[in-house]
C-alpha cells in the first residue's frame, strides 16, 4: 500500500493545487465543508490544463469569505475593498493588457455592494473573468440576507424568513452583456474546471456562478443538513441544460438547480473596440497605450 499521510499542514508534496497556494498560510480560515476551497481546486486545474502563464495572471477579490481567495493563491493577488474588485480589475486590465485578470469573489460582494460595477463591466465587455462563489448568504458577517438568498429562507436578518426577491445571476449578467455565462455547483468539479478553462480562453467579460454550501450559516440555520448533505442535494437536484434561457434558471430554496453553459457569444471586448474606434477616429495621431510606462 502506497497511501501516505503527512502531519505537517504546510506542505503537501505532489498535490497539483500546492504550487498555486501560499502554503505558509495554510490551514485556511474557511469552515469545515465550505465550498470555496473546492472551487479553488477547480481553478488551479483549469490553470494547469490551459497552460496559463502564471506570471501573466492576476487575481482580484473583494471582501467576504470568497474574498479571501486572493490571499491564499500564490499569484499576483489583490484583496480590494467591499464590492470594488471589478473596477480595480478594470484599471489593472487597462494598464496591463497582457495580464489575464480574474475576479474571484462572493455573491454579496459582486451583486449587492458591487452590483453596479458588475453590470457596467459586462456592458463594456471588459476582458475580465469573474468567478462568483454563490453561497446564498453573507457568510463572513454571520449569515445575513443577500440579494441571492432565495425566498422563505431564515437568515440572521430575516428571522421570520426572507420575502425579498433574489437576483437570478446568469439572467442579469447576460442582460448586461457578458459573452460567457455558466453555472455549476461545487458538486460539479470536473465541469467547473472545464468551464473555467473555456472562460479563460474567451476574450471579453466571462462569468461563472458556482453554487456552494455555507454549512455553518445557511444550511444549518435552515435545517438543511451539513455540507455533505448539501453536496448530495446538489447532485440530486441539478440538471444540466446547456443553452437554457437564463430567464428560466432562477434558484429557489429546494427546487431544481439548472447548471450548464448558458451563454457563449461573440462581441468585441472593450480594449479591442476602443483601439479600433480610436484608430478610425484619429488615424496616424492615435498612439495606443502599450502597457506599463512608468519610469
Amino acid at each position: 500500500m502506497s497511501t501516505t499521510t503527512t502531519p505537517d499542514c504546510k506542505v503537501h508534496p505532489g498535490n497539483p493545487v500546492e504550487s498555486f497556494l501560499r502554503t505558509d498560510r495554510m490551514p485556511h480560515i474557511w469552515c469545515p465543508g465550505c465550498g470555496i476551497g473546492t472551487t479553488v481546486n477547480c481553478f488551479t486545474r483549469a490553470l494547469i490544463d490551459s497552460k496559463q502563464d502564471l506570471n501573466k495572471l492576476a487575481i482580484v477579490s473583494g471582501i467576504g469569505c470568497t474574498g479571501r481567495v486572493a490571499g491564499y493563491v500564490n499569484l499576483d493577488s489583490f484583496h480590494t475593498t467591499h464590492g470594488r474588485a471589478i473596477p480595480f480589475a478594470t484599471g489593472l486590465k487597462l494598464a496591463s493588457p497582457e495580464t489575464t485578470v480574474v475576479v474571484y469573489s462572493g455573491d454579496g460582494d459582486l451583486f449587492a455592494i458591487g452590483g453596479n460595477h458588475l453590470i457596467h463591466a459586462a456592458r463594456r465587455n471588459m476582458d475580465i473573468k469573474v468567478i462568483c462563489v454563490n453561497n446564498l448568504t453573507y457568510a463572513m458577517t454571520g449569515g445575513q440576507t443577500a440579494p441571492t438568498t432565495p425566498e422563505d429562507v431564515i437568515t440572521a436578518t430575516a428571522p421570520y424568513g426572507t420575502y425579498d426577491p433574489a437576483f437570478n445571476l446568469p439572467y442579469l449578467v447576460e442582460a448586461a452583456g457578458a459573452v460567457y455565462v455558466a453555472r455549476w455547483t461545487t458538486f460539479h468539479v470536473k465541469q467547473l474546471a472545464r468551464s473555467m478553462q473555456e472562460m479563460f480562453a474567451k476574450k471579453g467579460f466571462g462569468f461563472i456562478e458556482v453554487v456552494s454550501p455555507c454549512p455553518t450559516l445557511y444550511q444549518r440555520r435552515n435545517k438543511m443538513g451539513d455540507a455533505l448533505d448539501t453536496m448530495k442535494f446538489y447532485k440530486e437536484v441539478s440538471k444540466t441544460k446547456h443553452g437554457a434561457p437564463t430567464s428560466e434558471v432562477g434558484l429557489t430554496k429546494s427546487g431544481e438547480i439548472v447548471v450548464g453553459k448558458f451563454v457563449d457569444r461573440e462581441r468585441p471586448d472593450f480594449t479591442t473596440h476602443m483601439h479600433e474606434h480610436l484608430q478610425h477616429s484619429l488615424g496616424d495621431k492615435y498612439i495606443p497605450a502599450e502597457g506599463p510606462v512608468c519610469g
Partner: protein
Amino acid sequence: MHADPVGVLTGAHFMDGDHAACEGAIAAGARFAAGYPITPSTEVVERFSNRAPRIGATFIQMEDELAASIAILGAVWGGVKAFTVTSGPGFSLMMEHIGYAVMTETPCVFIDVQRGGPSTGLPTLPAQADMMQVKWGSHGDYEIIALCPNSPQECFDLTIQAFNLSEKYRVPVFVMMDEVVGHMTEKVVIPSADKIEVEPRHFTTKDKSSFQLYAPVGEEQTPEMTKVGEGYNVHVTGLTHDERGYPNMTPAVQERMVKRLVTKIRDNAEKICIVEQNQVEGADVVVVSYGITSRVAQRAVEMARAEGLKVGTLRLITAWPFPEHIFRALAPKVKGMVVAELNLGQMVREVSRCAEGKCRVAAVGHAGGTVHNPQDILKAIQEVAR
C-alpha cells in the same frame, strides 16, 4: 529623471486651472485616468480624454466615483501612473479608497476641485471645505499629503509635485483646488520636458526571495514598488498585514504597520512641507491662507499695510502634513494670526493647535459661494493688531 516629451505641451498657454492640472498630470507621467463627471472638476478629465489617445494613455469614464477611485489603484498596480478627479459629493464617495491607497501604499493622485457643501451644495461655486475631510475622511489613523494651488500655473506645477511625492512616499497625494482656481484662466508656462523633474516609480530590483512589498527602505520609510507580471506574486490587501503583505491581524502587527504609515509622512514633514512667507519677519500679524483665498487676503494685507500695520503673509502650499514646525516657531514672535479660508473653520484648528496659546488666532470664515470680501479680512487684521 526628466519628463517624457511625448506628454509635455511646452510653451506659454492661456488656460484654466482644471486644464493646467491635467497638463501637469500628463507631464508628471500619468498615463491613466478614471473619472466620473462632476462640476466643477470635469474639465480635467475632459481634457485628458482628448489628450490620452494621442500620448499613449488611457482614459475610462467609470460608473461612479467609487469605481473611478479604485480603477486608478488597479492601474497603478498594472504599472502606470494614474489619477482621478472629483469634487464635493464625489470626493465623499472616494473616502474608502483613500484608506485603501494609504493601507496598500499605492502611489496615486486625487484632484479635488472644491465646491460649496454639504451635500450637493453649490455645484458651480467655490469653497475650501474639504480640507479636514481629505485628512480625516477615511476611517482609521493615516497620513496623506495635500497641496493647495492658488493659480492655474500652480495647478500645473503642484500636480507634478503631487505625483512626485506620491512615488517618493507611496502615498495618495491630493491636489486641493477650488472652483475659482479651477475655472480661472491665466497664463500657464510649461517648460520643456528636460526642465521638468519627474520622480520615477521605485521598482525593486531585488530577487523574488528577498523582496518584501512592505519592508521600509531609507529615511522615507517607504517600501519599494512592483507591478503585476514580474513574478513576485505579491499580495496586496486592505487588511492589517506584515512586511510580506500577508494578513496578520494582531495588535503587534497593527501597531508596527500603522505607525510606519503615519511616521513615514510625519517624520519627513519638514522636507515635504512648502509654505510661502512674505514679510513675516517683524510682523505683528500674519495672515494665513491658501488656494484662491490667498489672493483675496493679499488685497486685505495691502490695505492694512497702507494703514501702517505690520502684516506678513503665510500661504499654505502644503496643507497636509500641516507645517507644524513653522507655526510653532512663528507663534511666539507675533501678536496674532488671521486665518482666512472658504469654510467655517477648518485649517484654523491646526493653526490654533500649533500656536499653543502663544498668540491670538482669529478665524475669518466664509461658507463659500464666492470668495471673501477683503474688508472682512482687513477688519480681523485690525482687530488682532490692536
